[in-house]
C-alpha cells in the first residue's frame, strides 16, 4: 500500500516513518509539511493511504481533503483534538493519537482493506462507485462511498449530496462534478440533478416527453425532455 505522511512537524514525521519500518506492506511515497505540498504530492503520486495531521499551518487536514476529488484511505494522526475527533462520530474512521503506539498502529493497518487494483484507476480516471469522497458540512464530516450516494442536487453555488439520512452541502458546481463522475454509473438527469444509476428502481413517462425516475428508498427525480432521449438510449440494449 502506497502511503503519504502529512504533518507539519519534522520530528512527528520522522517518528511515524520509523514506526512504519515494521510494516513492509506500507510503502512511504513521500512526506508533506502542509496541505498545499500534500495536494501536489497526492495529485502526482496518487497514493492509496494518507497519514494526516489535522492542525497544520495554512490549511487544516480537513481542508486538504475537501480540495481532493477522490479521497484515498485516511488515517488521522493527532495529539489531542476532541473537536476534530468528534466530527467523525457519524462514521467510523481510524485515527491515531500521538505519541503513536506500535500496537495501535498495527491494529489500524491490519484493518485496512487491500487497495483496489491499480489498473482500474489508471484506465478510468473518472470517479466510479468504488471511490470515496470527503464531505464536510459545518461541524460534521463524512467519508462517503459513491455507491451510497443516491443523487446530487444543485442549490445555488452548492451541491446537496443525498446519502443515508444526510444531505450535506459541498461547494462545487454540478457541471464540474458531472465531469468528474464516470457516466456508466452516474447520469445527468437535468440541470438540477445527477442520479446514481444503481439506485434506480422504476421509470415512468412524465409531462413534455420527460421521465420520472423513482429511486430505491422513495426519492423521485425528474429527467428533463432533452436528457430523456439520452437516458432511454443509455438504458436500452
Amino acid at each position, binding site marked *: 500500500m502506497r502511503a503519504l505522511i502529512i504533518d507539519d*512537524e519534522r520530528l*512527528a514525521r520522522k*517518528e511515524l516513518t520509523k514506526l512504519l519500518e515494521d510494516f513492509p506492506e506500507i510503502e512511504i511515497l513521500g512526506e508533506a509539511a502542509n496541505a498545499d505540498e500534500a495536494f501536489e504530492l497526492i495529485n502526482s503520486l496518487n497514493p492509496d493511504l494518507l497519514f494526516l495531521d489535522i492542525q497544520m*499551518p495554512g490549511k487544516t487536514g480537513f481542508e486538504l481533503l475537501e480540495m481532493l476529488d477522490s479521497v484515498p484511505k485516511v488515517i488521522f494522526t493527532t*495529539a*489531542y483534538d476532541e473537536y476534530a475527533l468528534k466530527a467523525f462520530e457519524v462514521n467510523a474512521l481510524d485515527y491515531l493519537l500521538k*505519541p503513536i503506539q506500535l500496537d495501535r498502529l498495527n491494529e489500524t493497518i491490519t484493518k485496512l482493506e487491500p487497495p483496489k487494483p491499480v489498473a482500474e484507476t489508471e484506465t478510468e480516471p473518472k470517479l466510479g462507485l468504488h471511490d470515496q469522497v470527503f464531505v464536510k458540512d459545518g461541524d460534521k464530516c463524512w467519508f462517503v462511498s459513491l455507491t451510497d450516494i443516491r443523487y446530487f442536487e444543485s442549490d445555488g453555488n452548492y451541491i446537496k449530496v443525498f446519502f443515508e439520512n444526510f444531505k450535506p452541502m459541498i461547494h462545487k458546481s454540478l457541471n464540474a462534478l458531472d465531469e468528474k463522475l464516470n457516466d456508466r454509473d452516474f447520469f445527468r438527469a437535468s440541470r438540477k440533478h445527477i442520479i446514481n444509476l444503481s439506485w434506480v428502481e422504476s421509470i415512468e413517462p412524465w409531462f413534455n416527453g420527460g421521465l420520472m425516475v423513482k429511486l430505491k428508498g422513495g426519492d423521485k427525480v425528474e429527467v428533463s425532455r432533452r436528457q430523456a432521449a439520452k437516458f432511454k438510449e443509455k438504458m436500452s440494449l
Partner: protein
Amino acid sequence: MPVMMLPILTESIYFFFITHISRKLNKKMEWLKRPTTELVPKLLLGIITLSITVYLLRIGVSYLLDLYGSDMLSSINFLGNVMANAFVLIIWASIYFTFHYYEQSTQSLKYEVAMNEMKLNQLKAQINPHFIFNALNSIRALVDEEPSKSKTAINHLSNILRSSLVLDKKKLTSLKEELATTKDYLALESIRFEERLQTEFNIDPETENVSVPPMMLQTLVENGIKHGISKLKGGGRVSVRSRVDLGRMILEIRNTGQYQNNGIKGPGQGLRNSRQRLELIYGESAKLEIINENKNTVLTTVKIPLHE
C-alpha cells in the same frame, strides 16, 4: 438576706423571659434583615410594650407576695418603672443587634472571599493537553535522533508539570518563577517548531520579584503560538518584555500573526480567563489589552501593580 434577694431574683426572671421572647420574635420576623429605618420604630414600640408588661408583671407578683403598696400605681412610679425597664431593654437590644450585625457582615465577607477563591481556582490556567502530547511525541522522536536533547526536553516537561501542580495551590507567584516556566514551555515548543519559532526575552531586573498570577504569562505566550505562529508556514517570533512604569509593571508579549477579534465569540477562553483572574486579584488596578501592533505583530500588554 432571702427577702433582699427575692426582688432581684424575680426581676431577673422577668427580664430573662422577656428577652427570650423578643429574641424568638426577632428571629421569626427576621428583623435583622430589615432596613434600619423600618427596624428602629418597630423596635422602640416593642421595647415600650415590653417595659409596660414588666411593670404589670411586677405589680402582679408584688400583689401575690403581699408586698403590694398603693403608691406603686401612681403615675410617677409607673413612668419611672417603665423608663427603667426600657433602659435595660434598650441596652440589651443594642448589644444583641450589634453582635448579630457584626456576625452577619463577617459571614458575608467570608462568603465573598470563598466565592472569589472558587472562581479563581476555576480560572487557573490549565496546561493544554494538546501541548503535552505533542511534546511527548517530539521527545519520543528525539530519543533516537539526539538522546541528550531528549533528556533536556524531559526536564523541561517535568518542570512545567511540576509548576502547574504546585501553582494550583498558589494565588500568586513571582515573575521570576513564571518566566522560568514560560522558558521551559518555549524550549519544548522550539523542539516541535524547530526553526519556525524564535524567542526573545527582555526583562527589567526590578520586575523579577513582582507577584503575578501563576501560569498567566505562559498562557498568553501559548496563545500567541497557538493562534499566531503555528498557523504560519514560515513560523515567527515571540518576545517577552517587562518594565516598570508609574508604580506598575508592564509586561509586553509580542508574537507574529494577526489578532482577529471576531465579534460573535468575543475573545478566546485563555484571554477571558486571564482578564477575570486579574480582576479578582487586583480589582481595577490591573489591565490586559491585546491589539495588532502592526500588520504582522500582535501585542498583548498586562499591567500589574507592583505591590498588591
